[in-house]
């Protein structure tokens, strides 16, 4: 066949059509390969909601449970601790919880459903360390009213997990989805149905 007989338009069309179909095939093959990497059933099971009985918790007591492999703190705040929240606004970077770090029902002055019960994800919003519960006033510095302190890089949070100004952590601690099954039982990991 001499070169004048070559239908270059048809050749180009066939090349492009073949390439397009090949690309579709590669995308199709990528579906199972990528799906395979998403969390399997064991991971999904550990993401299931956990029930916590808080009947025996005393005022000021903090308890840690595990949900999705992360520490979840539950604190029964005393009246004094709840009152301390109101005086801190000027020192906090997001006192009204404007940034979405909590479900809608926890976007209030206490960052919780019930003022006395605080539920938080115990992971520092800076680099993921676990802060410690330091309820004793003046234990971190002279003005410390009690709260959570991250010893990794010195981030400070109040008794509602709100972050102070001038620390490395950018946002308030996260509030997980949760609801009360009854007076003494919290379900962590699930909003009320």
């Amino acid at each position, binding site marked *: 066949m001499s070169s004048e007989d070559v239908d270059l338009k048809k050749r180009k069309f066939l090349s492009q059509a073949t390439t397009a179909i090949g690309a579709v095939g590669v995308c199709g093959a990528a579906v199972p*390969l990528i*799906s395979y990497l*998403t969390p399997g059933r064991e991971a999904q099971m550990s993401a299931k909601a956990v029930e916590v009985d808080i009947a025996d918790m005393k005022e000021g007591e903090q308890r840690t449970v595990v949900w999705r492999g992360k520490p979840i703190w539950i604190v029964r705040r005393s009246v004094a601790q709840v009152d301390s929240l109101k005086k801190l606004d000027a020192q906090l970077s997001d006192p009204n919880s404007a940034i979405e770090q909590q479900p809608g029902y926890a976007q209030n002055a206490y960052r919780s459903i019930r003022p006395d019960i605080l539920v938080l994800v115990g992971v520092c919003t800076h680099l993921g360390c676990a802060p410690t519960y330091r309820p004793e006033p003046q234990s971190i510095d002279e003005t410390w009213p009690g709260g959570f302190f991250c010893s990794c890089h010195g981030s400070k949070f109040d008794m509602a997990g709100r972050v102070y100004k001038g620390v490395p952590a950018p946002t308030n601690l996260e509030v997980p989805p949760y609801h009360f099954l009854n007076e003494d039982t919290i379900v962590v990991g699930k909003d009320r149905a």
Partner: protein
Amino acid sequence: MSLNKWINDRLPIDDFVDQHLRHYYAPKNLNFLYFFGSLAMLCLGIQILSGIWLLMYYEPTVETAFDSVEYLMRDIPFGWLLRYTHAAGASAFFVILYMHVYRALLYGSYRKPRELLWLLGLFLLILVMAESYTGYILPWGQMSYWAAKVIMNIFGSIPVIGPPLMHLIQGDYVISEATLQRFFAFHVVVFPMVLLGVVFIHLCALHTVGSNNPDGIEIKDNLDKDGIPVDGVPFHPYFTIKDIVAAVVFLIIFFAVIFYDPTFHGLILEKENFIPADPLVTPPEIKPTWYLAPYYAILRAVPDQLLGALAMLASLFIFAFMPWLDRAPVKSMRYKGTRSRVSLFLFVVSFLSLMVLGLLPATPTNTILARIATIVFFGFFLTLPYITVYDNHKTPPDRVRM
């Protein structure tokens, strides 16, 4: 294009592509049997990719191996697909390799100057067998365990060095955790690494001597004034396009098997291998995988344990002598005489018979049949020097036929 130039001044990608694809000339008369080389590489690619994915959930301990395989098949999205692809991929690999070897036997692709190419290919075949054997033990099912045990005892039957060798390979006095973990290491690191290296050398050797063709005549003997073989066409685009068609047809058949009959009636995965390994209970019938069945049939056909093991080894290594056993003046079966054709036909029949017999129970009739097939199998090699000399060969043409 300055980036292209910048790279090519430092790394000769364009030169390489020119030399090995655009200006690598393959005979224009290559037929469908020449698909199997590139398909073998496709299979290797599929095995490596699916293998890496399986590795993300597989746990190589006696306690967890079986459960981790079942877990990834049931509870990981598309885990069943990856596992079946890897298992069926092993079988597909052997279908393709056996066709690849048959092609070489048919057209004399092992003859001078391709002796080393042939030997490297045989080494690759044995490596893939080692790879499949070490992989077969990993799911730690009943068949994994007992097949491993039988093969280990073949090593153990070698006089004097047998038992210490067996203990060295197993890492224990029985098949155990140590065996599983070292087989795992060999299966996922050592063999694949060597395999990739030898595939590269196999291709280097191929590109030095060039492909044989169904007429068995050297296209390099007939060059035009530019030094290009008259009967050659550039590998790219002619054979890259042709190989893509082959790959598509192969993938259609391959995935039809995976989607509709993934265990292929027990030929790809035996029923017994879905039962966790139990060192105290042997399954009623221990079968080898179909691709190793011919050698297993030879092992069983020989009445003496040691001679059987040696015959089995010989049935593989005897292929290495093909380039020197074939003394015909022509390479391709197209121009060989009747005796050579009958001889190759009987060899293929004996190989397939041994494959079937290796999968069947060793009844007295089957044993006699296996003995006949074994004699025919070795007879092919041993009579080759005489048959190929005393035969009515034809004269091949000067140019390839289309």
